[in-house]
């Protein structure tokens, strides 16, 4: 499973401050620590629309530069604002890049989809349209269908698309765990070349001991066909479950990845 390290996110207060103060050391350290912990991609999020777009563009350009100086890991640009994504693309020198994200809304597909197609980036596609997160599997698949049709016309291959099945809190609706898992299964059967990705922590909102729920859900999602997870790679237990899940779903021949991680002391009980 691909791990997208979520820690450089401005919704986290200490990160927002570090970005505002241009605290290079702190943010480089965060990038390097995630890379060392086994992140395959480093997510970069510069804000939730609090400052001006100009500020956020400047922050994104700066962040992309300093993170690349700190690690060779490819980046995932976490924004749905075309100007901010363009800012990251201007500064990015790596080969592979994830743009996170687009929805089935045509104007977003036109702007962000075109950017991804032009730069041959991978694109995270949320299984939703203009009406918010659909409650049913069928509606989420309909959104995926619209997205794939549109992106194909732009010349993108299914292999460049990471579908996010979306996760709603189980505390609010007991059926939502299965809705997400079935959506993953269906996406994998309809678009075998496409990947699936999701953030795990939404599932446990409103419940105690959230990490237990997140880990259980990670393992179930791996079985359903999840290819990539957005998580905190510095959480050694979560990373241990990633390794175990890969092994248990036949993606780790002779259990070598798991055992290698164990020898490094990275499998935590």
């Amino acid at each position, binding site marked *: 499973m691909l791990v997208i390290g979520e820690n450089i996110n401005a919704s986290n207060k200490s990160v927002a401050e570090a970005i505002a103060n241009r605290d290079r050391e702190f943010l480089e350290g965060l990038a390097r620590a995630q890379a060392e912990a086994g992140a395959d991609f480093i997510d970069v999020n510069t804000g939730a629309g609090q400052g001006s777009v100009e500020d956020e563009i400047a922050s994104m350009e700066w962040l992309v530069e300093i993170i690349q100086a700190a690690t060779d890991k490819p980046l995932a640009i976490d924004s749905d604002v075309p100007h901010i994504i363009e800012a990251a693309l201007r500064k990015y020198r790596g080969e592979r890049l994830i743009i996170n994200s687009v929805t089935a809304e045509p104007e977003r597909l036109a702007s962000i989809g075109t950017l991804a197609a032009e730069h041959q980036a991978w694109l995270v596609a949320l299984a939703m349209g203009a009406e918010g997160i659909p409650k049913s599997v069928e509606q989420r698949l309909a959104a995926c269908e619209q997205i794939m049709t549109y992106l194909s016309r732009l010349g993108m291959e299914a292999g460049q698309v990471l579908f996010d099945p979306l996760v709603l809190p189980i505390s609010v609706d007991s059926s939502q765990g299965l809705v997400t898992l079935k959506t993953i299964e269906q996406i994998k059967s309809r678009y075998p070349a496409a990947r699936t990705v999701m953030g795990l922590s939404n599932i446990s909102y*409103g419940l105690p001991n959230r990490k237990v729920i997140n880990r259980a859900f990670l393992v179930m999602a791996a079985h359903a066909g999840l290819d990539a997870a957005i998580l905190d790679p510095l959480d050694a237990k979560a990373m241990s479950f990633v390794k175990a899940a890969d092994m248990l779903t036949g993606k780790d021949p002779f259990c070598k990845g798991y055992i290698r991680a164990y020898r490094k002391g990275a499998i935590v009980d």
Partner: protein
Amino acid sequence: MIDDILELIRENVVQGRITQEDEGMEEGMEGQPGVTELTEKALALGINIHDIINKGLTAGMELVGQKFDAKEYFIPDMLASGQAVGAAMEILEPHLAKSGIKTKGKIVVATVKGDLHDIGKNIVSILLRGAGYKVIDIGNDIDTQTIVDAIRTEKPQFLGLSALLTSTMMTMANTIQALDKAGLRDKVKVIVGGAPVSEEFAKSIGADGYGADGFGAVRIVKSLASDEDK
């Protein structure tokens, strides 16, 4: 006997049990009557509807609120209790109309334009219904004019606005201004809530109140209600 039934209603609201098949928050409650069976029984015994609501259902919901505030209860606990009260209110509604008891105030709730988040708003709706208010949920991503129109036609005592994004928070301010322009601002108390919203923000945009969470919203509505709507 009457007090026993009301006590059982309270307990079962706290346990979040709608019918006798339901599990409780505690072990081994299956098979005992739930809130709907107890409410039917209370009606059959001729217990005053006002008492069923106030001493049974609402009192139970207040206990749930205390447990939630003390972090003993979690979101699913309060949703189960809220639904139990909602089911009981459905049973009582036809009798309420007949007995001429005035219901509590009416509240229109919406998530503002540009914001698709409905979880918080739905929780607030369930809890307000549980507290005995009539809630009209007009949905999420609702433009300002639609909200103003709803205030004009529904004539509620309260308007609850929700926003989960820093980018849509300001739309709540626009809504209050639009109510002002439409000459409706003094007709309705506006309460606001959502993750980025704070007490100070609520004040700065001229809202009447702020609810930090579902029970906070119920508290603020109660405190702002005129005596006849309490």
